[in-house]
């Protein structure tokens, strides 16, 4: 086929490549309970050693029973959340109801894998309440591999937070007192405390984590607010008490 020799200009070009990605730091975390789910992220956005802003949300409300945390390349993250929200709106118009959590999880995997050869450089954690009323956490890698878990940390302080969670949630390397066993689900108050402690500790030891933390707490239908009452400044985002209820809790973190 190629019956002519390549001229100078037809040689393969050498290209200096423009790098379309950067890393904007921060950490996200989610824990599922028996009838609740907690999704959290710090609010610092950085590039290199510079803090770009002290308040850039990484956790987003999708529906009354689903919250998505995104971490990695902020521009991709914002675009991804925008597109997921758009797909959920279309679903709402088509079916007159919110998409179930496990379907949102599958939607996210499809949307991520669609970009397999130019990926969204983003780690996603989806938290919420399943249709059976249980708390759930789904975690994803940038190209869409996902699984349902009880807890997951991602982002720059993942390596600091996840071992702590393995120990405190899954009781790894802990032996129960003889004749007793570890609880399978932790109470809400305890989980919220663990999440806040995780972020204060990550702030101490990781330079890209700090400024503030936002916790989204989703309660299953019919569950009371027990475990949440002891915290100050909890703001409810759902307009009425029937159905799942969604709350935000904001705490300052060290800014250095």
């Amino acid at each position, binding site marked *: 086929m190629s019956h002519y020799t390549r001229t100078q*200009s037809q040689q393969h070009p050498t290209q200096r490549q423009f790098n*379309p990605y950067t890393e904007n730091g921060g950490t996200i975390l989610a824990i599922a309970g028996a009838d609740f789910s907690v999704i959290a992220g710090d609010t610092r956005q950085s590039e290199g050693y*510079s803090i770009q802003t002290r308040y850039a949300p990484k956790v987003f409300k999708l529906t009354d029973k689903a919250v998505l945390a995104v971490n990695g390349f902020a521009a991709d993250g*914002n*675009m991804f959340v925008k597109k997921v929200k758009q797909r959920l709106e279309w679903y709402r118009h088509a079916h007159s109801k919110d998409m179930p959590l496990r379907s949102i999880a599958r939607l996210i995997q499809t949307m991520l894998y669609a970009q397999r050869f130019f990926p969204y450089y983003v780690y996603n954690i989806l938290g919420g309440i399943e249709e059976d009323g249980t708390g759930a956490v789904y975690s994803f890698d940038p190209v869409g591999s996902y699984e349902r878990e009880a807890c997951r940390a991602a982002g720059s302080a993942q390596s600091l937070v996840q071992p702590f969670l393995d120990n405190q949630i899954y009781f790894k390397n802990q032996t129960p007192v003889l004749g007793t066993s570890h609880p399978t689900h932790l109470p809400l108050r305890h989980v919220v405390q663990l999440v806040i402690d995780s972020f204060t500790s990550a702030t101490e030891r990781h330079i890209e984590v700090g400024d503030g933390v936002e916790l989204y707490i989703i309660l299953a239908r019919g569950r009371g607010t027990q475990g949440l009452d002891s915290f100050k400044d909890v703001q409810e985002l759902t307009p009425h008490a029937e159905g799942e209820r969604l709350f935000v809790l904001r705490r300052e973190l060290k800014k250095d």
Partner: protein
Amino acid sequence: MDHFPTNWGKPRDEAVDVYSTYPLHSRPRNQVDTFAEGVQHTQQPIVTGTSVLAIKYKDGVMMAADTLASYGSLARFKDISRLHPVGDYTVIGAGGDMSDFQHIQGILDDLIVEEFNEADGNALGPSEIFEVMSQVMYARRSKFNPLWNSLLIGGFKDGKSFLAYVDLLGTTYQSPSIATGYGAYIAIPLLRKVVDGREKDVTEEQARHILEECMKVLYYRDARSLNKYQIAKITKDGIEITDGLSSKTEWAFAESIRGYGAQNQ
């Protein structure tokens, strides 16, 4: 696929030539393949502007940038305005490639005209301009053909201040004080000390003073800067952009510096 039948070769049987490729033997062959080197995209900025600074204050937003467009280390164009008004409520300030910035000015000016022609009583505010610019910048980076700029978008509309950043990667954020380029290292610590948490209290005089101070420090330390800059102010009264200002500088200390370059002692 070669779409030139004459390139398909002579028919086996010269009596039957359904494509009549024979005796046409002048075969079109592109001597130079235009796309052999790939489509050329901006791989690096050429004529560049340095830092842009901006802060929120009591009455609105104030923004500063010098008027230099450098060609590498050459101070090539010394009177280029890097602060550009968009509509009646927004100013956009740019660092990075100045030809890309002038292309952006064209996009935005067209956008304002299109919006004016709707004559629906709506005007684009700073948050809308920012949304457009963030989508344009992200779309261009996703096509591997970025607009090589760091942009600050500041404005005041409906009693609210707005200040945001967007760059060649489509990265965005909002903050009470933002600086691009060298300003992010040198001016931000000075600006945050004065502004952050006090946006509602900082007066126009204080705002102007801290920006002038930062522009002076940048002139001392940033080798790609110029002691001629503009300050834009966006308030309820609209947009005001100054002519070229300059800082009072003090160089007497340079006499006593020893250890760099030639000296007679």
